[in-house]
């Protein structure tokens, strides 16, 4: 099964919000996973469309790797279901040959050489492109003869990225593909990913903490917090979940009080009589009007800030929920 290349310049499939016309690549329903007393995933529902790039974000221990491992059947669900391309993924070779999963700090056997890893990957993945793999090896300056145990952390990460990209799998999962990568190599990764994605669209999931670096590459953002999907939206919509407010301290306080936004403040910084707050809530018209009347600056924030803001607030909320259970 190959994915048809989009003709150069053809933009008919492009409207950003036209997803959902094709069968989803990933369907997750009511997924739960416990490790002893820890609920790593709680009632996760997800539907991922083909031909899109998803960013999976969340703090350490939020359940990102558990979710990704569950997708490919490397971790079993405690309850709920996972389907890839409309079929169960668990021990299903037909489905797994169309899926590549590169783990965080992916290890390959120490004695294998780079070219052995690539050869093995060539056998494992239906869409493998050897020429592309060789080009990436040169781009990332890996020696095909080098043994895996001699590779630096960054080189290992690069090898994982090469396997992830050159397999051209319809579902490409990259878990934190950053370990030890320098900024030049990260830029190279983004460029090659975009280039190849443009010609061979597929479903890509990238988990990351470097949110702002990758934000512009994403179609959609999935935020996982304490095992719960707290946000799954387009990158643009996601950015609207928080805003920054700055101005004279008393005016900021007045606005926060009269709009009730004070409860949603996730970050606050003051210098002299000036205050800047990040509010983790969508900006409504009333707040915007009042802010303008008070002469306050209202600005959008970066995706990283949204993620941080939502993470900060939900900690207190989930503790409250926990108490209510």
């Amino acid at each position, binding site marked *: 099964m190959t994915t048809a290349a989009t003709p150069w310049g053809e933009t008919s499939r*492009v409207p950003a919000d036209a997803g959902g016309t094709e069968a989803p690549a990933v369907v997750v329903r009511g997924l739960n996973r416990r490790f002893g007393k820890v609920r790593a995933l709680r009632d996760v529902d997800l539907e991922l469309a083909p031909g*899109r790039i998803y960013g999976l974000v969340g703090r350490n221990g939020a359940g990102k790797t558990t979710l990704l491992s569950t997708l490919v059947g490397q971790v079993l669900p405690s309850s709920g279901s996972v389907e890839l391309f409309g079929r169960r993924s668990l021990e299903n070779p037909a489905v797994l040959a169309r899926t590549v999963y590169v783990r965080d700090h992916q290890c390959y056997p120490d004695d294998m050489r780079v070219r052995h890893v690539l050869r093995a990957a060539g056998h494992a993945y239906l869409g493998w492109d050897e020429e592309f793999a060789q080009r990436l090896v040169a781009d990332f300056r890996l020696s095909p003869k080098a043994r895996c145990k001699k590779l630096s952390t960054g080189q290992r990460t690069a090898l994982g990225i090469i396997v992830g990209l050159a397999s051209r799998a319809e579902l490409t999962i990259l878990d934190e593909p950053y370990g030890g990568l320098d900024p030049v190599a990260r830029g190279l990764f983004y460029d090659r990913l*975009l280039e190849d994605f443009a010609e061979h669209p597929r479903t890509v999931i990238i988990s990351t903490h470097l949110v702002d670096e990758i934000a*512009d590459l994403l179609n959609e953002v999935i935020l996982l917090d304490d095992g719960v999907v707290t946000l799954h939206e387009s990158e643009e919509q996601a950015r609207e979940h928080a805003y920054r407010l700055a101005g004279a301290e008393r005016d900021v306080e007045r606005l926060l009080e009269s709009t009730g936004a004070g409860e949603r403040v996730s970050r606050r910084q003051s210098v002299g009589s000036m205050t800047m707050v990040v509010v983790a809530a969508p900006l409504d018209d009333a707040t915007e009007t009042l802010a303008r009347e008070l002469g306050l600056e209202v600005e959008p924030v970066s995706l990283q800030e949204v993620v941080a803001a939502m993470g900060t607030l939900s900690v207190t909320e989930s503790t409250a929920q926990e108490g209510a259970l």
Partner: protein
Amino acid sequence: MDDSRPIFQQVADRISSDILAGTYGEEDQVPSTNEIALFHRINPATAGKGVNTLVTRGILYKRRGIGMFVATGARRILLEERQAQFVRDYVDPLVAEARAIGFTAEDALRVVGRRLGAATAAGEPRKEQS
């Protein structure tokens, strides 16, 4: 790309500015969605959305199977749009700043007039003076 405005708008604005500056003439082909995406390191769908807003406004049009082209009359449409936005985007901030620093209307007008005069003069051939 900066954080203050949606990326697709920045893509559209960039192409618009290039058309106004004459980088792309009317009936010229503009870069494909994928080329734009790679250049700015953004998702192709975002680039496509930016291009599509220009199609909706009659600035670009699509030749099936070939690519996107600048429509005849695109410059005129863009000029009219920019002129309509001029007060909001440039005059209002200027007025606000003039007030903040204690400029009277005459002060502000004098400075602006001088600049406009200088810009006109610079547009004409003249001897370079340092």
